[in-house]
């Protein structure tokens, strides 16, 4: 089995699964408690497949899934609890609301066997919590994207599942709606007391909603742990890339605090110690400082170097500048660093001639052992 992720706190969900078919192998093992766990990964990394496996929709699976002490799946023992008995709620990427039923009927769907009065009460309660009151008799086709998402959530939560799985819950929404709904979902997750898994390729959503993160790459767990640790000290290049780091260079150790950045043609002082002889060093685009210091005054011990502008893309509020260190070039694809800065900074820099000065703060450098 690959790397197993384990978080502190009481364990409610244990997953250890494997599935392979030509071209892809999924091998995931982790445990989760009751705090929301984010599953981060690129498209095709196996995130949705993992959720579907927990819900019971993946055939030809091997391994074991235990939720709240109940064995949902154990291929060795021949146990395969059908989806309807797993008490796992899944919010689908495109919501999968029943188009022929009203909002009320959709949300009540999971409580068919409950007696009517209690069912009505629970449904009304959940609808109020998600601000859906008044929409009872509408059909899903009449609702906005945000409303549909909340109906899908409500429908999932009403039967009080033991686990709540969210598959890219915001991907189908317009950007400007997302922050509103994020807040709503955050509140909802706080109120919900079971295991929560949230799958996304959007790192900011994951960071904001989840306390712990698992990173999947090509079907395997490549990193796991509290979100701050994953983001500040990613354990490998893949994780660093998935958490948004844009600048990488192959690196060779000179001494534990000094590395030679091979792709950047310089030596860098790092606060974090490099453990292996060869690896990578990285730095986030917004951690790089660019100033207009006069030439000749570059302090190598502070990782300062002259730089030339190769290309830039201007956004409404931020600018991404592509810089090359040590010498200039005419080729617009030959850059070392991708830097993000506020528009004001950029405007100010424009008034100074090249070369500018770039500083890679030793505290911000990420040392990667692979």
């Amino acid at each position, binding site marked *: 089995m690959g790397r197993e992720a384990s978080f502190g706190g009481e364990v409610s969900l244990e997953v250890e699964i494997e599935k392979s078919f030509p071209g892809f192998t999924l091998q995931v093992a982790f445990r989760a408690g009751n705090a929301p766990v984010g599953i981060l990964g690129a498209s095709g990394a196996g995130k949705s497949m993992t959720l579907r496996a927990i819900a019971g929709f993946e055939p030809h699976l091997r391994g074991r899934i235990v939720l709240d002490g109940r064995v949902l799946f154990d291929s060795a023992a021949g146990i395969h609890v059908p989806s309807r008995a797993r008490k796992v709620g899944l919010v689908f990427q495109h919501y999968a609301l*029943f188009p022929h*039923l009203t909002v*009320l*009927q959709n949300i*009540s*769907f999971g409580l*068919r066997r409950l007696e*009517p009065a209690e069912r*009505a009460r629970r449904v009304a309660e959940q609808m109020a919590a998600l601000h859906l009151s008044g929409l009872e008799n509408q059909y899903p086709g009449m609702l906005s994207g945000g409303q549909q998402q909340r109906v899908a959530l409500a429908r999932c939560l009403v039967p009080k599942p033991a686990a709540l799985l969210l598959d890219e819950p915001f991907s189908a929404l317009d950007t400007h709606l997302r922050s509103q709904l994020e807040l709503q979902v955050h509140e909802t997750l706080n109120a919900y007391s079971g295991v929560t898994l949230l799958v996304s390729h959007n790192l900011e959503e994951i960071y904001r909603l989840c306390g712990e993160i698992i990173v999947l790459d090509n079907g395997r767990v490549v990193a796991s742990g509290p979100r701050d640790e994953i983001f500040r000290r990613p354990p490998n290049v893949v994780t660093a890339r998935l958490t948004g780091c844009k600048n990488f260079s192959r690196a060779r150790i000179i001494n534990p605090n000094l590395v030679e950045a091979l792709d950047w043609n310089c030596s860098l002082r790092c606060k974090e110690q490099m453990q292996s002889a060869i690896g990578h060093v990285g730095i986030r685009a917004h951690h790089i400082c660019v100033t207009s210091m006069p030439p000749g005054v570059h302090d190598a011990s502070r990782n300062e170097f002259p730089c030339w502008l190769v290309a830039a893309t201007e956004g409404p509020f931020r600018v991404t500048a592509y810089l090359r260190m040590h010498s200039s070039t005419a080729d617009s694809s030959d850059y070392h660093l991708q830097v993000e800065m506020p528009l004001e900074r950029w405007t100010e820099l424009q008034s100074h001639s090249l070369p500018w000065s770039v500083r890679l703060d030793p505290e911000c450098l990420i040392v990667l052992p692979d």
Partner: protein
Amino acid sequence: MHIPMRIPSHRLAALLPGVLCLATFSASHLQARVPQEPVQITVSAAASLNDALIEIDREFQRARPDVRVDLNSGASGTLEIQIEKGAPVDVFVSAGLQQMDALAAKGLLLAETRVDLLRNELVLIISRGSKNVANFSDLDHPDVRIVAIGDPRTVPAGMYAQQVLTALGIYATVRKKAVLATDVRQVLADVETGSADAGLVYATDAATSSQVRVVAAAPAGTHEAIVYPAAALRDAPHPDAARAYVQFLRSASARMIFSRYGFLPAT
């Protein structure tokens, strides 16, 4: 609040006719083999005898009010297959000897009840308007392009047609320009519409159409006697009533009705 799982009432209403029919179906079925008075016999008879037999059955009903007759009309070949497969038939009246002989060979007849009931003649017909065919040997002529006959393998009239044409030595030629029909009605239709220049049918069949003209009857000795045999079946559900029916078919009143439709007695 409406629960999504129940089938809505207007859909149930749609199922109602189906449910009623199923109920009728099962009810009518439970009575299948219980012997009741009156006794009901099934008579499988060649389609060409249908009209005559309907009248005869009415007479039979008067003579034997305790027996009800269900008349199953069809092509003799089909009727034979049904009997072989164990259909509940009491009496079989065939339009040809072939089918009856097949059943006899399989031992499915009450042999002593078998009788040659009627006979028929094979005639040559042409459509009312045409003129160039006067007798059987004219069929050989290149001007006659299409001749309609029943399929000799399955239609009794077709078999006899083959015999006649073979006896006259023209079968091979005529066969090349023959259109084979699955039943006599098709032959009549082909000639009526002019699709075929001529056709070979029974005299009784020709009589049913006003748009064809009989130009000749098959010469004596060119074919086996066209005989309509009747018999009661070994596995008849009601053998006594079956025997009585066959007997009645040979009676004077039955004969009179048959002759009105152009069927001559066999003997």
